[in-house]
């Protein structure tokens, strides 16, 4: 029983962490339909910014803020320079964002040096509680909490404003959205920035979790984020949340019960979902 609870909680926490990574991509890829291969780059910049801020100021809150600000700035620059020319053209998006990914990753080394950096958990979130045989890792509890908060905030914004609607409409028919009096460029810019900031936030929260940041981490986690967005159902935030939790739980249970398959668990999960429910777990609607 304790075992199951442990697996469940850790799976949930990992899932939540993956959700934080994928939340930004849910906006950028899921909603705006931009194949952003540089997403992992934004994520790493967030992670490094947070580690650097934490090391210089000693404040975890400031570190998180610093990451988000980095995400916002990078998001702005990326959208203006890289994404604007290629909206609606997936082929060009692949090329240009992959190129930009190389730049982002390599710039990390220019700015922060080529080595991995240690990322520390702030003391008040370090360690774990033991309740019987159940081990509750504090930072993971924190992640679960933050995950729900972030989910709540984005969901609120998407539901309460027209932004989500305009983005979805804009992807279908940009001209028409404008002809109905909506400033699609601004909305896309805003959404992209929000996605980039979320990516950076994900990176910042990921860093203390694994204890280390390194320039190449973006590539690894970028693909994971794509997987989550697709199996959750393009553009569905609840879908991404559920998919992320599913990925987290599957990883946790597979590693325990069928360790031989843990390398393949994400791929198997994605293949199964796509074969049996091609539109993803939660298609954006209906």
């Amino acid at each position, binding site marked *: 029983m304790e075992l199951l609870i442990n697996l469940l909680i850790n799976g949930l926490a990992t899932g939540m962490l993956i959700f934080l990574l994928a939340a930004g991509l849910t906006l950028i890829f899921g909603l705006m339909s931009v194949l952003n291969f540089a997403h992992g780059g934004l994520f790493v910049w967030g992670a490094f910014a947070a580690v650097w801020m934490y090391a210089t100021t000693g404040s975890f809150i400031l570190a998180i803020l610093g990451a988000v600000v980095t995400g916002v700035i990078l998001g702005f620059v990326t959208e203006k320079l890289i994404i604007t020319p290629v909206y609606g053209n997936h082929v060009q998006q692949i090329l240009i964002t992959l190129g930009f990914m190389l730049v982002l990753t390599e710039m990390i080394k220019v700015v922060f040096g080529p080595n991995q950096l240690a990322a520390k958990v702030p003391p008040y979130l370090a360690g774990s509680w033991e309740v019987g045989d159940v081990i509750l890792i504090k930072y993971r509890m924190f992640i679960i909490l933050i995950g729900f908060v972030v989910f709540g905030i984005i969901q609120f914004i998407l539901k309460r404003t027209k932004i989500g609607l305009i983005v979805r409409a804009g992807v279908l028919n940009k001209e028409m959205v404008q002809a109905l009096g909506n*400033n699609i460029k601004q909305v896309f810019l805003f959404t992209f920035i929000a996605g980039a900031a979320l990516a950076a936030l994900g990176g910042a929260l990921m860093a203390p979790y694994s204890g280390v940041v390194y320039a190449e981490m973006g590539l690894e986690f970028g693909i994971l984020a794509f997987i989550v967005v697709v199996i959750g159902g393009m553009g569905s935030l609840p879908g991404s949340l559920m998919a992320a939790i599913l990925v987290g739980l599957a990883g946790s249970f597979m590693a325990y019960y069928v360790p031989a398959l843990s390398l393949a668990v994400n791929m198997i999960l994605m293949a199964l979902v796509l074969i049996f429910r091609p539109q993803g777990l939660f298609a954006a609607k209906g």
Partner: protein
Amino acid sequence: MTDLLEMRDVHTYIGEYHILQGVNFTAPKGQVSVLLGRNGAGKTTTLKTIMGLHPSKSGSILFEGNPIEKLPTHKIAQSGLGYVPEDQGIFATLTVEENIRVAMRDQSEATAERVDYVLKLFPDLKKFWKKDGGNLSGGQKQMLSMARAFVQDSRLLLIDEPSKGLAPVVIGKVIEAIHELKKQSTIVLVEQNFRMASLVGDTFTLIDDGRTVHTGEMGYLVENEEMKRKYLGIG
């Protein structure tokens, strides 16, 4: 009589193609002006040029006396223009409700009233309120496209072939609606259904090969067999 919209010697290129080669056109306030011409004459391009969707290369477009030819599309729309494109421009994976919500600029009482009005005009939309726009029938899409333009408080409505795909009885309702809308709005209509055009139009402008070739009172055209034969191939 004042002109709400005025186009002076407008030239528009699409890519490398010189499509509009001198369009002069005015839409007198409170009237229905009809653009006529054969397929490929440039009617749709004229409307898109006004909306800034195919920006003009030269010439001027004045709306309420202000030049709008340099403005981005959304600014043009916000300054009081509504547009019903010929391909309806429905957001296929958005519901009917969402389609309409994209067009609503505010949550005001007046907007709510206009929504009520279009739902009365096209009860089908109410029936399929939560359904995807892409699943509507051809005629229902046409209604939805008009509804989207009508829920905005537009002083100028550009409507591209509204009768296309509509059942005769609905065309009748649309004609009534246009008469109704005329009270607050000015309307520019592209219409191939000459019967409908003649029933609602006050003035007409003939476009041929990207140029405006004739403008006048609708009644004049209805009577003028010669002109109808020459430019519209009827009679």
